[in-house]
Structures are given as structure tokens and as C-alpha cells.
């Protein structure tokens, strides 16, 4: 567990403050929140897990890349464990002199986090079944074996 991974609620305002400075006129922020539906199914609960050490390293790499590519400061938090519907799972804030670089860096970080940071999401549905979310699978889901859900 580090400053990037957290089991506590994430406060977007605190991250925005973290990347604010008197010479930064533009701060872009992205909040990825837990939705109550996925692939047409009602989600009632979910749980994030990670390969913590590698997730930290991958996330730190991504932040360093963003700060090398644009004149910005970037902050990132990703929540682990059970996350209530509507809560933020990930928050990114990028502050720079102007909005172009702030938006670009913020967008870069969320795309790379999704692609490269070893974090996984298990969803529980209104019908009692559970599945691992797999963005590479056709359905986007892998039902958890033995849960009685659709295969």
C-alpha cells in the first residue's frame, strides 16, 4: 500500500490541490467511479485487487512519463478492496500552465493506467453471480466458477 494505492475513499479535491501551484493555470482531473451496471447487468458490489508492488511501479512510471512529456505535475490514486457504487475507483489530477497540457496528461495517465497497471476488478450482480472483469474478453466478463451464474 502506497500513496498511489489506497483502501480509503479518494478525495478528488485533495488531488487537485496537490497539483495546484501559483504558476499552474490549468488543472484537469478525471474521476473513474464505480457504476451500477456493466455489460447490461446490475452491479451491486465490487472489489479491486492488485499486484501491489508492480502496480506501484507501473503507476510511478506512467506519472514520470506524463511529467516528462508535458510541463505538468500529476497525481494519481487508485482504490483497492470493496468500493461502494458511485465512489471513485481512480482519480487523476494534472496541473500545468495551460489547459492543453493538463488535459493531455490527464488523458494519457488514465489510458495507460487501464492498459499497464496490474489491478483487477471482481463484480457482484443483482442476481447473486460474480465475475472478473476482462476488457479483452468478448463479454467483458469471466464468470466466477461455481457461482451458478451464466457461463
Amino acid at each position: 500500500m502506497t500513496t498511489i494505492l489506497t483502501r480509503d475513499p479518494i478525495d478528488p479535491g485533495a488531488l487537485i490541490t496537490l497539483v495546484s501551484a501559483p504558476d499552474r493555470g490549468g488543472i484537469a482531473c478525471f474521476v473513474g467511479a464505480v457504476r451500477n451496471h456493466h455489460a447490461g447487468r446490475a452491479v451491486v458490489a465490487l472489489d479491486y485487487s492488485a499486484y501491489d508492488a508492480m502496480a506501484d511501479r507501473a503507476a510511478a512510471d506512467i506519472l514520470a512519463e506524463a511529467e516528462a512529456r508535458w510541463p505538468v505535475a500529476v497525481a494519481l490514486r487508485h482504490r483497492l478492496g470493496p468500493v461502494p457504487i458511485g465512489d471513485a475507483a481512480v482519480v487523476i489530477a494534472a496541473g500545468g500552465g495551460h489547459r492543453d497540457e493538463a488535459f493531455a496528461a490527464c488523458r494519457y495517465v488514465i489510458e495507460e493506467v487501464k492498459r499497464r497497471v496490474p489491478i483487477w476488478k471482481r463484480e457482484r450482480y443483482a442476481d447473486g453471480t460474480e465475475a472478473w472483469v476482462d476488457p479483452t474478453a468478448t463479454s467483458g466478463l469471466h464468470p466466477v466458477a461455481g457461482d451458478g451464474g451464466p457461463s
Partner: protein
Amino acid sequence: MPSIPVLLFARYADLLGASRIEVPLSAAATVADLVRHLRALPGGAAIPERPFVAVNMAQVDEGYRPEPGDEVALLPPMAGG
């Protein structure tokens, strides 16, 4: 007998019922061999033939030859964010 500890996460840990499995070094000459070994375990058949494998937290290809002391990990498709 020397062995390689393999970390399993998320769906792969569920499939094999463990978050860490010791694979005999004799069954882990290459990453491909190691994956074959894991896929032959009970529940392992649903692991893909070419999963994402990280050694010491960096991706390796299936020809990589694990050495004692390596931290090997099998990673399901990432779903953060």
C-alpha cells in the same frame, strides 16, 4: 528440490485456488514450460496458453528462463481504472 515461486492474481488465483504456487525448477525451464505445468493443475485449464507473465515486475516472453530468486507472476488482463 529448488523451485520457483509463482504469484497468482485475481481470476488465476481463483482458478488454481492459491495466490502463490511453488513450481519445481525442473518444470520451469522456460516460462512456457512453467505455464504448461500450471495449466495441468486442477482448475488450471482455463488459464490461457500465453498469459501475461511478469518476472521481477517486468513482462517477459514465453522463452524466458526463470532463475532461482526470480519473482514470477501470472497476470490476468488488467481491469483497473
